[in-house]
């Protein structure tokens, strides 16, 4: 059965504005579920979900796991170390083996861009992308957008600057696609060595200096700077990055209005964001985390109606 989102959620680039709005609207009641004394509803009772994490992740994996458990799904976590994955099994073999055990959904985090889409095209179960390489992290993009909508009431016309290492950021790409579809104005800000080629063609403007981004924006989404970017030659040093591109209180104090500050975490305090800002009144970093569970519950719920029909599939095994 087709779900309102199709079979898989691999990228916000592939969703329509209406589909994104549906996820955000569905997330609203799920926020309340997490505030109940019994934080659990039976919506996904009997569904089996595999969390397939080929990359270390604490925040996203826990958030998905909470979302799954609060919907009463049965979950299995597979991490790359200690499994057959580390013995050289290919991604597609791993997935087919899991599917032979009749699972309904796979949540995948993988280091290769496109891995979620690759998997989705090869298995019948629904695939949810929990971050694929440098491509997209759609549920993070959705939770960022939900947090902005909570704060501003709407996304249309909002000015959002995404700052930092756009080149390697799946969070950045998902934010760009999602925000643009809902009518926001999006700017990217960071050293040119960390901006992807032809990024303007996505529909964003480039603001080279964070001071100018602060003057322009209603909200800033500060991306995490992977520390290995320095050794790979993209930037001279973390110290300089902080001095030139870091979000400090001094810079933030010159903002013409109250800015909303987001960060997908985990933060490098003192590199892309100063502690005073992260912990300060403009930060919505913790509401982002709370919204993460609600958004993931919404996505799981909306995709659940489309589970594979094993009887019709002619029996695998």
């Amino acid at each position, binding site marked *: 059965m087709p779900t309102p989102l199709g079979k898989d959620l691999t990228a916000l*680039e592939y969703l329509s504005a209406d589909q994104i709005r549906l996820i955000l609207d569905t997330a609203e009641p799920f926020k309340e579920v997490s505030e109940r004394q019994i934080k659990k509803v039976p919506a996904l009772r009997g569904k089996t979900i595999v969390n397939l994490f080929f990359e270390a992740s604490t925040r996203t994996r826990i958030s998905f796991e909470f979302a799954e458990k609060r919907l009463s799904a049965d979950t299995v976590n597979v991490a790359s170390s200690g499994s057959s994955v580390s013995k050289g099994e*290919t991604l597609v073999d791993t997935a087919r083996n899991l599917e032979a055990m009749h699972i309904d959904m796979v949540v995948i985090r993988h280091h*290769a*861009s496109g891995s979620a889409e690759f998997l989705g095209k090869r298995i019948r179960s629904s695939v949810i992308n929990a971050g694929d*390489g440098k*491509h997209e992290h759609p549920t993070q993009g959705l939770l960022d957008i939900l947090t902005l909508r909570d704060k501003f009431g709407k996304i249309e016309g909002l000015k959002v600057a995404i700052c930092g290492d756009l080149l390697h950021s799946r969070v950045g790409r998902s934010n760009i696609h999602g925000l643009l579809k809902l009518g926001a104005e999006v700017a990217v800000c960071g050293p040119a060595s960390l901006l992807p*080629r032809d990024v303007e063609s996505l529909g964003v403007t480039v603001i080279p200096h964070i001071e100018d981004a602060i003057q322009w924006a209603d909200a800033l989404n500060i991306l995490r700077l992977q520390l290995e970017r320095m050794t790979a030659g993209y930037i001279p040093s973390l110290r300089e990055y902080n001095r030139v591109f870091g979000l400090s209180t001094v810079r933030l104090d010159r903002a013409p209005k109250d800015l909303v500050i987001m960060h997908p975490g985990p933060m490098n305090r003192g590199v892309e964001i100063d502690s005073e800002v992260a912990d300060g009144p403009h930060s919505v970093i913790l509401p982002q985390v709370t919204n993460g569970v609600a958004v993931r519950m919404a996505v799981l719920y909306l995709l659940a109606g489309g589970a594979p029909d094993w009887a019709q599939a002619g029996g695998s095994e």
Partner: protein
Amino acid sequence: MSRPILLKGGRVIDPSRRSDGTADVLLQGGRIEAVGLNILPPDGTQVVECAGKVVAPGLIDVHVHLREPGQEDLETVATGAMAAVAGGFTGICAMPNTDPVCDNQGVVGFVIAQAQRAAKARVYPIGAVSVGQKGQQLAEFGELVGAGAVAVSDDGKPVASSHLMRMALEYAKTFGIPVADHCEDPTLAAGGSMHEGIISTRLGLKGIPAAAEEIMVARDILLAELTGGHVHLCHMSTRGSVELIRRAKDAGLRVTAEACPHHFALTHESCLGYNTNAKMNPPLREDLDREAIRQGLKDGTIDVIATDHAPHHYDAKEREFDDAPNGIIGLETAFGLAMAELVNTGLLSLPDLLLRMSTTPARTFNLPGGTLATGAPADVVVLDPAIQWVVQPEAFFSKSRNTPFAGRTLTGRAELTIVRGQVAFQRTS
């Protein structure tokens, strides 16, 4: 000796003599015996009716990977040579990136022996520029040429060291062979899996900028000028490269260049959806690059169409994009793609196309063939230039199936391929 063959009443196109008209072609004793009207065949001649067909010198591909020795599960000299004749090729040049590398006369001799055993297309080994293709020490060009190599190349990898490239060009002059370079600045291309542009940005894949190729093209041109050697630039993919070559040729330098069907047929948009059959090195580029390659083929800036035939096992391409190997097979689709994309679009005439696929490749690498002159080797192809056919990889003679053109309708293909005066391939059905 085989029976004489008379190819009767076809449109005979010989780009080497700029001739194009209805004629008969008589092959005898492994040579072209006569081309003319109403030839009376000797007794016992096999007569092939060629009305409505094109008779031309056999196609020659100067850039093929045959995988033998070392990866015979992907392709062998025999299967590659069979795929070649099925594609209308009578001669192919085998790149040396095998295992072991073709950097000594032993491997050259082995490849030639395997080709003789197969008795399909002629196979000309290309020796390595450096020992083990490691980019450090020159291979023994003299012995390689002595054993039958027709050129040297470290293809698969660039000759990164400018000093080594200079020495290769100087030293190759002694033997009159071209040095074929895979133009890629390894530091700029490192980790890249597709063209750097809007599509790589959307897909979150690390890109290979056009400059990675152009830097090496410019360097090689400068070294050709410095040494007077013959540099052959493999698989050109960018508009900048075409412009650099155009200027070098205007300056009279000894530079030749090739382009592959996929670079004049496709762009980086084929990578959308993480289609690993669109993953190649050099990568598929942008519209403007594809257009420049086509113009380069038209005005002769690009001398040669070569396939870069690169067989891979199906499950090697059944991977995450970053981990999938580069390249596609091309021998059996090259002519149909060239007809569809270049001739039927009005860019090239059919004689011009055959010049780029037969005569010029032969001249560039000093190979026999590429001509229907009397006394030339009887390497001839009979082409049906109008037939429409659908690419079905499972029907390929190649051992591998990796092509982005599956399901595509192409125009024109080889019906009969004759090598050394003997039928090497005849299409049934």
